[in-house]
């Protein structure tokens, strides 16, 4: 046996060196990965570091990059990815902190560089560049940063010589070792062309540029790819005048434009008018179609329209104390909640307004000249949906849609871009009007007040900006105090004032503060708004940059420009990588808020307590103070009550983001994790909050095309076009405007009515009760108000989108579940929201469709537990009610439809059905109504498929049956049977008696449903308590009963879904072990400190679609930032902390199931799209046209089977085994156990050899040694490895040997390392998933 005793330590080290030097060729090729070295060797990343023979955990990053098993393996390109990008998250806290600090430094230097360049602080910019240069890990991409600087400097130079001199000097003397790239050359080329004397001989220019072009090996094509540097004119010069680049070296957009330009120039020269250019049009089959298309597009896009953006002046006036105009619509105006948010929404929606010119063009839309096909009534507003619906042939409709998509491009821009200038103008206007009317008017008008604040704030603001400028210019180096200074120069002071005012008013009543907001949130919000304003200005500036020299061209040419713009826009959105550091946001925000606090005042009145006279005065509108909130000292900014009354003090829902509305054009398809969705604002593929680890995995997966199927599915969801259900809008708006409560719409509320205060000497119990009750009143008031606001936003948006064709861009949460990006109004919303939405496209019902429409109606009503025929029968039995609902929906309060489970959607379907039945052949009806198919307890369906439970599978309808099974009923019956059994032995069990009599499916439903998503006993108790509370009355008793039943429900679920349950337990156990493990190749330093390992390993798996899922649960760390208002604690987006084991464990089983249901949905979406279906989903509810239900049903079953045909648990285990194979787990075992004694003995021996106490790092190192030997190709090494014993090899299988009891506690226990081994997977039941294909009620 080879032990440490056998050789001295030096010899072992020498052996190790030898092994490493030989670069052991191992049995496993992955082991040659360039992962960081084992403990004790050179620092990771240094060139000299020898490769380890151990497998890096995330060399196993490759794991998820392996082809998804559902994919054609050859389709996936292999990825070269350094595991260094990932081991940052699994190493040690110290390592992560250092590396993330570098990243944080780079990010903050970037943003500072950007700011300083914008503000023309050239010297400072150069010194920032030097700092960036000094960060070694960043050196590789440093040239990109230099390019920013170079471009800025060149812009003010007047000769090519000057520019080359600067670059030469900088790259030789200041930043040695850095070489130019294609972009540097593009910059030099652009500016050379710019400074070249016009009309002069081009020979000099040509020779200069030739030299530049020869500087980079990548050649002219790579240089020309920099369309953000080179303008259209530059390309013309390079190609046409200088002949230095070839046509094929130009980007395709530019090539097209140049070609078109030439054709145009030639035709113009020939004196003919350009009428046709088929090359620009999408391929079409018939000449007739082409000519239709041409004439139509000419009408909607005549040459009078320039390509410049629509001016938004009309649409951008924000009135804050009057009603903002609403979009002109031929529909009832809504009585709106009077909140600022509402006004902002209305203001944004004005982007949907059509100009007279646009209206004219639409009115004249025709396929043949001289024929007004739409017969538009001038008194009515334009309704694209009506126009579309009136078209007769598919060709006409297709053409119309194409033209509309084009037409809507500009409207989309005005929807997304908001203007603050307009707000200020409106305040000034109101102020002046009020001034003309006299003082009182000024006091009353909110806008006039805002104007006053603005005018008072502006000079202070300018002073502050000037002071900051002085500070920056005077500062020798970076100053901590004024580190925000460069940022204040980016947006003009006027805008900053307006933004500050608007943000603070918007934040009123957030964060649980009734009349005000949390300071931390306020400073960050204001800072972020300034940053966003700066970004969107940049974006607009860039957009027209390349094409700035182009004007007056033909339609066809403009088409090219539009295309070019579109791709440019994507380019810029994708490149937007810089974010301001949180501390800068906070500081900028606090400076602005302080200025506003200093000047903003409101008139107040009060009663003098001494004289009892009314007195008038004025007070600050905002005040900063502290208060206790749930026991925590919290900085708050209070808004004066006098002002909140004027703002109507409404609770704002979340933060209103007006730019995120449904889109008028197809969303940008997802192509990378940051590119997709809206056109003018960046959206992320994954909704993630400060998890750099997740981002890194997603980015890597995206780059390797491993998640193309995910993109595909999301793009399908985004392509579904919608319109607003006009009939439903009419009914709902009628109800809404009464202001009375109706269904889930809360009524309009007057001021809050608190209970009167008890006398001051009332018993403390009375005072407490009074506080409690008033809090309840406040909560209810707030919740009703916020609900009414929310519904109002939805309705107002729906109203504005009447007659429009629109889309919902989607992204997803980290488990892969899809959500529309636009909040408020979407198909995930409540019953009312959903009823307002129909598919833009219609499809003939046909026989199947008519039937499914009826089934849908029954399902919505709540009759979904009977066979399909029964549901059809139900509808037929209620035809009179249905007719009545349609004819007089609001006639009385006991209408049939009102009692439905989902009344609004029921009513919408009634309309659709009755319309169809009006036709001679109802099957001919063109239906737009989305029809839903819902899974029966979808989480349990996945569990049953994973576990192969027969009973379970049948209860959730995975097995064909003549009627649908009701799992809730099933569980309720099981519980009842168990209780009856229990009563036989304990006849006095009162609770059991109670439930035997009273249990029903409703009581257990929520618990069964959420059980698979990991509801805890406490959660289940509260759910059940909610159901039985009214029956029992007493709070304590009800809770006790609920707790009792919750346990029974859990047990009953376990009976039917036993295998599924074992899987749930297995998932939990895996997570527990992973959470307690560390990498075997951990560096010595991080273990020696405190002799305590950091647990950094989060649970990571890959969905069947290749999406890497990283559980983001880590300990939070907040950073303290001193601002001039107060010190705020804000979360640090660059922090990588130890994992939160509790949340990792609780989250894993449900997250895993969600990752499967998300995969199923996306797979079904893609398949349906291929089959020509419209598809939408709300997680486990899939929607399509009635006529297409049979196809969708077939697809979703096939996809479910395809998903589960592979043993997903086994696949997960394999993935885990590979990913975590070189991990060790930290655990406790009894000291006096056989294993404990052996390990102690070995530790004792090691201590003696070392001459100091052995530590964990020594133990790990010894094990590394053993494994290196075992993996050697030299037999002699392997033999020695086999002989070697380490504390870790002694602890083999410790997890299985000891019981849970033995592993717990402190006394009599010792901490050991054991190889991380995951438990064996539980055996699977007999259920065969293929039977799902024939199960009618799987989704129904």
């Amino acid at each position: 046996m080879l032990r440490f005793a056998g050789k001295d330590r030096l010899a072992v080290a020498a052996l190790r060196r030898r092994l490493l030097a030989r670069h052991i060729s191992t049995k496993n090729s992955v082991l040659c990965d360039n992962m960081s070295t084992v403990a004790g060797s050179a620092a990771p990343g240094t060139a000299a570091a020898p490769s380890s023979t151990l497998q890096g955990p995330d060399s196993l990053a490759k794991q998820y990059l392996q082809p998804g098993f559902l994919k054609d393996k050859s389709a996936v390109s292999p990825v070269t990815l350094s595991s260094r990008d990932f081991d940052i998250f699994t190493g040690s806290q110290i390592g992560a902190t250092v590396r993330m600090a570098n990243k944080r430094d780079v990010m903050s230097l970037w943003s500072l560089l950007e700011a300083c360049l914008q503000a023309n602080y050239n010297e400072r910019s150069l010194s920032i560049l030097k700092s960036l240069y000094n960060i070694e890990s960043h050196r590789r991409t440093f040239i990109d940063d230099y390019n920013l600087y170079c471009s800025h400097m060149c812009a003010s130079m007047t000769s090519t010589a000057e520019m080359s001199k600067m670059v030469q000097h900088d790259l030789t003397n200041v930043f040695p070792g850095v070489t130019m790239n294609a972009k540097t050359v593009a910059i030099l080329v652009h500016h050379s062309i710019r400074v070249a004397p016009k009309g002069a001989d081009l020979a000099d220019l040509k020779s200069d540029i030739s030299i530049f072009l020869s500087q980079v090996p990548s050649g002219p094509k790579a240089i020309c790819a920099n369309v953000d540097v080179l303008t259209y004119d530059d390309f013309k010069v390079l190609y046409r005048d200088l002949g230095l680049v070839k046509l094929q070296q130009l980007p395709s957009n530019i090539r097209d434009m140049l070609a078109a330009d030439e054709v145009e120039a030639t035709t113009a020269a020939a004196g003919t008018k350009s009428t046709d250019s088929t090359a620009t049009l999408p391929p079409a089959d018939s000449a007739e179609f082409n000519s239709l298309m041409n004439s139509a597009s000419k009408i909607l896009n005549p040459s009078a329209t320039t390509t410049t953006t629509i001016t938004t002046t009309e649409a951008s006036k924000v009135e804050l104390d009057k009603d903002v105009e609403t979009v002109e619509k031929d529909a009832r105006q809504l009585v709106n909640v009077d909140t600022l948010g509402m006004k902002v929404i209305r203001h944004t929606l004005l982007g949907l307004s059509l100009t007279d010119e646009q209206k004219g063009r639409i009115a004249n839309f025709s396929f043949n000249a001289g024929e007004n096909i739409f017969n538009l009534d001038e008194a009515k507003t334009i309704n694209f949906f009506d126009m579309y619906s009136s078209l007769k042939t598919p060709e006409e409709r297709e053409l119309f849609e194409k033209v509309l998509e084009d037409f809507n491009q500009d409207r989309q821009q005005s929807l997304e871009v908001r203007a603050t200038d307009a707000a200020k103008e409106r305040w000034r206007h109101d102020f002046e009007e009020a001034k003309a009317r006299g003082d009182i008017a000024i006091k009353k008008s909110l806008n006039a007040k805002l104007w006053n604040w603005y005018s008072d704030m502006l000079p202070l603001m300018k002073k502050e900006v000037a002071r900051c400028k002085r500070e920056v210019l005077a500062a020798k180096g970076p100053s901590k105090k004024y580190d925000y200074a460069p940022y204040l120069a980016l947006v003009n002071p006027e805008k900053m004032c307006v933004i500050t005012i608007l943000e603070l008013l918007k934040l009123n009543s957030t964060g649980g503060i009734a009349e005000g907001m949390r300071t931390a949130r306020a400073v960050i919000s204001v800072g972020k708004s300034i940053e966003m304003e700066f970004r969107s200005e940049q974006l607009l500036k860039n957009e027209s940059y390349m094409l700035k020299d182009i004007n007056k061209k033909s339609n066809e040419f403009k088409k090219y420009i539009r295309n070019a713009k579109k791709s440019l826009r994507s380019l810029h959105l994708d490149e937007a990588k810089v974010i301001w550091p949180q501390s800068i946001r906070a500081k900028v925000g606090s400076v602005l808020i302080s200025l506003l606090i200093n000047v903003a005042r409101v008139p107040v009145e009060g009663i003098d307590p001494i004289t009892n006279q009314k007195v008038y005065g004025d007070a600050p509108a905002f005040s900063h103070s502290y208060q206790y909130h749930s026991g925590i000292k919290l900085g708050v900014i209070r808004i004066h009550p006098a002002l909140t009354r004027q703002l109507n003090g409404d609770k704002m829902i979340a933060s209103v983001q007006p730019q995120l509305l449904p889109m008028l054009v197809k969303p940008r398809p997802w192509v990378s994790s940051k590119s997709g969705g809206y056109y003018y604002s960046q959206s992320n593929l994954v909704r993630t909050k400060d998890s750099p680890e997740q981002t890194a995995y997603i980015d890597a997966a995206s780059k390797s095309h491993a998640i193309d199927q995910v993109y595909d599915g999301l793009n399908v969801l985004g392509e579904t076009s919608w319109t607003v259900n006009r009939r439903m809008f009419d009914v709902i708006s009628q109800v809404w405007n009464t202001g009375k409560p109706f269904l889930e719409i809360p009524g309009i509320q007057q001021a809050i009515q608190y209970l009167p205060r008890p006398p001051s000497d009332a018993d403390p119990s009375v005072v407490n009760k009074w506080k409690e009750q008033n809090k309840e009143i406040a909560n209810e008031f707030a919740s009703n108000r916020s609900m009414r606001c929310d519904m109002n936003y939805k309705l107002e948006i729906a109203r504005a989108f009447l007659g429009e064709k629109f889309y919902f861009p989607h992204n997803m949460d980290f488990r892969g579940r899809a959500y529309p990006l636009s909040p408020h109004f979407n198909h995930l919303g409540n019953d009312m929201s959903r009823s307002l939405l129909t598919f833009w496209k219609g499809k003939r019902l046909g026989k199947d469709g008519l039937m499914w429409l009826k089934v849908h109606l029954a399902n919505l009503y709540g009759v979904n537990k009977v066979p399909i025929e029964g549901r059809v029968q139900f509808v037929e039995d209620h035809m009179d009610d249905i007719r009545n609902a349609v004819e007089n929906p609001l006639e009385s309060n006991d209408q049939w439809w009102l009692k439905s489970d989902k009344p609004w959607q029921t009513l919408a379907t009634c309309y659709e059905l009755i319309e169809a039945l009006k036709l001679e052949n109802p099957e001919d009806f063109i239906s737009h109504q989305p029809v839903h198919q819902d899974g029966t307890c979808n989480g349990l369906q996945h569990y049953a498929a994973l576990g192969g439970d027969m009973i379970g599978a049948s209860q959730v309808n995975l097995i064909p049956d003549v009627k649908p099974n009701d799992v809730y009923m099933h569980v309720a019956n099981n519980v009842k049977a168990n209780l009856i059994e229990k009563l036989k032995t304990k006849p006095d069990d009162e609770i059991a008696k109670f439930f035997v009599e009273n249990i029903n499916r409703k009581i257990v439903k929520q618990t069964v449903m959420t059980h698979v998503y990991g509801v805890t006993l406490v959660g289940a108790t509260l759910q059940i308590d909610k159901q039985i509370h009214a029956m029992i009355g007493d709070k304590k008793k009800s809770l006790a009963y609920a707790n009792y039943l919750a346990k029974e429900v859990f047990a009953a679920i376990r009976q039917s879904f036993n295998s599924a349950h074992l899987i749930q337990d297995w998932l939990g156990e895996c997570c527990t072990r992973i959470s307690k493990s560390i990498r075997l190749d951990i560096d010595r330093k991080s273990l020696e400190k405190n002799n305590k390992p950091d647990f950094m390993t989060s649970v990571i798996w890959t969905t069947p679609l290749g999406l890497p899922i990283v559980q983001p649960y880590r300990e939070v760390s907040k950073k303290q930032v001193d601002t001039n208002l107060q010190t705020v604690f804000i979360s640090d987006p660059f922090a990588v902390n130890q994992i939160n084991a509790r949340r990792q464990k609780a989250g894993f089983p449900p997250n895993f199931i969600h990752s499967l249901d998300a995969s199923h949905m996306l797979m079904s979406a893609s398949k349906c799209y291929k089959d020509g279906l419209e598809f939408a989903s709300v997680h486990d509810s899939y929607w399509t046209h009635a006529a297409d239900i049979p196809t969708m049903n077939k697809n979703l079953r096939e996809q479910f089977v395809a998903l589960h045909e592979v043993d997903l648990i086994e696949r997960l285990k394999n993935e885990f085994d590979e990913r975590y194979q070189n991990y060790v787990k930290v655990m406790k075992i009894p000291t006096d156990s056989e294993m404990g004694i052996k390990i102690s003995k070995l530790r004792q021996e090691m201590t003696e050899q070392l001459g100091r106490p052995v530590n964990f790092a020594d133990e790990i190192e010894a094990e590394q040694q053993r494994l290196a030997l075992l993996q050697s190709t030299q037999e002699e090494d392997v033999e020695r490895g086999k002989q070697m014993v380490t504390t870790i090899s002694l602890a083999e299988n410790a997890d299985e040997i000891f019981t849970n009891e033995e592993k717990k506690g402190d006394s009599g226990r010792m901490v050991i390392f054991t190889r991380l081994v995951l438990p064996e997977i539980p055996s699977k039941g007999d259920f065969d998933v293929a039977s799902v294909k024939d199960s009618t009620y799987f989704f129904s």
Partner: protein
Amino acid sequence: MITPFSKKVLLDNIPTFYKSSFLVNPSVYETIFQKLQLQKVYKDCTDLKVLDIYAGPGQQSLIFNEKFRPKQQLLMDNRPKFTNFWETHLKGSHLQLSTQDPYSWESYLMLMDYQKIFVPETQDRSHIHNKFFVMANVTDKKYEGLIMQWYNCIGQKNWVHRYGRVQMLVWMPTATAVKLLAPPKSSARSKASLVAETFTESKLIAITDDTAASKMDKLILQQHDPIMIKHADTVPNKRPQIPMSLLLITPRNVTFNKDNWDYITKQLMIQRKTPFEDAAEALGPGGREYFTQVLQDKNFMSRNAASFSAEEFILLTDIFTNWPFKPDIFMSLFDVDNDD
């Protein structure tokens, strides 16, 4: 007659003391009672009713009862190990027992108003109540909040204080006593010390001799000259020992707007180190301007709340009460729950 228990009896019979600590040595009790001079207020105690809250093992109750022979002495505790001990050891004494939860306000209403088991007389506030006395042991540090609420009840004149100015003799963690007795400018000065100083005269009678005692303000130790108690004279024996102090709390007769006072002390003590000229804004929008104008005292404006005496807070309360534009002080009481 039941003789006081030996430490051994207590330790042998009571398996847990619920994170509380109790003095057991009868001779130390004797010194304490001598120091208290209760006869000055309660004379021969024949009319005295004593409410003995969280009486624990009942050693103090027993010795007190033996010494003063009050008219009625009711022990309140709902911790089973103590009530079991009483069942076996205190039956047949003069002591009455109630197992109602002393933490719940309703328990007192039940005893005094409904069951009428313990009904004190209501007395005028011009003098200290001479027929009603409260003793308590709240040495479990999780009940610090309860002690603060009791102090608050003195200001509100509710709970037992609706009967008049009722003296209380309370054992509490020394850390709590330090907060309550902290004088102006001391680092422990808090809203609690203001409440104690404003509404009561709180006197440190005894304190366990340990490191926690060194946190007590030197001046207080000097003025109050407490009896130093050794942990050896207490139960349980467990380490870490619980540092505790005994306070005699005598309510003052105060007449000013308690609500406004509460609001002001709370708002200002959140920022106890902030100069008043900045902190005043926390009293309401425009507060800085109002107080600057009324006080006309630059020096005062530059001081911070931690340095204000009880009298100065009362002065600020009066000024605030007269402010025509003062905010609705109940506004923040009902901030909504949903934290978006």
